[in-house]
């Protein structure tokens, strides 16, 4: 099913933001839409967007490859993206990340065995005063978690795991 068939209202709203002769501008919001269900963008979805915007699939692929929040591979359902940049690191982000790794039994970049969480190190998220912090990216969007510690984080992951097994 094409994006326009699946999300007719959203696609219409997105296209209305840009001048009709510049509909290529809609590529980024449409990619987010394509990523909503499974957390990554398939080749078919890229082709679908390319057809809708009358650009080549290479153009769409180059946008997917350039920006870090688009993914073309399936990973954990929740991408836990911990900021380890300078200001956060001055407030203990590296140690926080190390403990998370040992608690989860995975390395940075890896996914938990149940496919729930992929742990990633990312650059500054504009929350330097509330470190340690991370964002969780899922198909459904992004959410910030600030002033965190390892215990709170493990509780959060447990809650996500429970919600998952109930759904």
């Amino acid at each position, binding site marked *: 099913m094409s994006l326009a068939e699946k999300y007719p209202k959203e696609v219409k709203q997105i296209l209305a*933001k*840009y*001048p009709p002769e*510049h509909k*290529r*501008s*809609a*590529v*980024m*919001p449409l*990619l*987010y839409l394509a990523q909503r269900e499974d957390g990554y963008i398939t080749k078919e979805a890229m082709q679908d967007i390319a057809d809708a*915007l009358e*650009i080549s699939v290479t*153009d769409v692929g*180059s*946008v997917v490859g*350039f*920006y*870090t*929040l*688009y993914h073309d591979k399936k990973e954990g359902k929740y991408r836990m993206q911990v900021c380890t*940049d*300078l*200001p956060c*690191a*001055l*407030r203990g982000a590296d140690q926080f990340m190390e403990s998370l790794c040992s608690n989860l039994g995975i390395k940075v970049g890896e996914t938990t065995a149940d496919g729930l969480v992929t742990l990633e190190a*990312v*650059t*500054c*998220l*504009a*929350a*330097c*005063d*509330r470190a340690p912090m991370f*964002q969780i990216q899922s198909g459904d*969007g*992004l*959410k*910030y978690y600030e002033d965190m510690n390892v215990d709170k984080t493990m509780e959060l992951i447990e809650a996500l795991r429970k919600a998952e097994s109930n759904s």
Partner: protein
Amino acid sequence: MLMTHILLRHRDIPDINKLNVYKSNGGFEAFKKVVTKMKPGEVTDAVKASGLRGRGGAGFPTGVKWSFIDNKIWPHYVVANADESEPGTFKDREIMESNPFQFLEGVAIASYAVGANAAYVYLRGEFWQVAKFLDEKIAEMGEAGVLGENLFGTDYSLHIYTHLGAGAYICGEETAMLESIEGKRGTPRIRPPFPAVYGLYGKPTVVNNVETLTNLPMILANGADWYKNMGTPDSAGVKVFSLSGRVRKPGNYELPFGTTFRQLIYEHGGGVQEGRPVKAIMPAGASSSFIAADEKVLDTQMDYAAVRTLGADLGSASVIVIDDTVSMDWVINKTIHFFKHESCGKCTPCREGTYWMMHLIEDIRDGGHSTDNVDLLLNVAKQMQNKCLCPLGEFSTMAVVTGIERFAQDFTK
């Protein structure tokens, strides 16, 4: 210390993010006044007279930037730069989350001044929730009749749209941002032509930072002289300082230009953790040169000109405090990795330079600080300077060069 805030007004007025509260505190009156009583050029003149300088980092006079817009080519666009990605900067997010209408009214005033009927707010992709929130606020403004067609009974119309990036620091550079809105990879354009002539969709465009725009309703409501009375002769008005690093109370502090580093770090920030001394200050985030801290530095009044006398730039005033427990080779390892990751790859000096700097700093930290490698790192950084297509490449060298030159002892152990 300020009695009341001009930008972070939510700290004085609870619920100012609600439309009726914003309105009952004078909201949208400045926009109504400019649309019904002033010519676009008069708005630009008032902003010029206020001395307002761009808050994104460059400090360029805002009214002067507007006056470059090419009136022979139409339509015009305004783009609000809400990409906020400089390590150490977190002010625009607070403004948009807590005082959104003042920011959006600023976008509207700028749009009227340059004759734009459409404005885009470009938010970094991580500000997903902020964008959703702004979309709601924009819709409320439409319902209240302050956005849309024939505003206040005139023939002026304006629509504001949000556009989410997707995780790329480079898109804070204004021409990369325009490419990104156009649906392309966010790589900078060769300039000139500047956006005022050839901007979004090849049309004249003004790009202003969130904090810059948020000043406008207050300047237009209270007058240029009122604004100019605050701050210093070089840098008029107030600034939101993002304070981070090894301080006790990190956070945003809205203060007049001319506030000293000591006041910011000790009076507002509660001093350094564990009472340690300040070793170095990065006043402009990861893009900053290091200032080696001493008594004279701490008593320096922060404005664009004064910070330059210390061999650094104030930039977006994202003040990262480093204490004497931290070694500079560790710090520049962090900044180099950041820029290596964020280099867009379009120009060779930046793409290759950040790559080699990353390998050299890793070797230096792993291999006992050989003098040859430190010299080579400094050499690579200096070779990059003045050769990159956009400021990102230049920024990546600042901490490297000043770290090695001003803190040589940290590279000889």
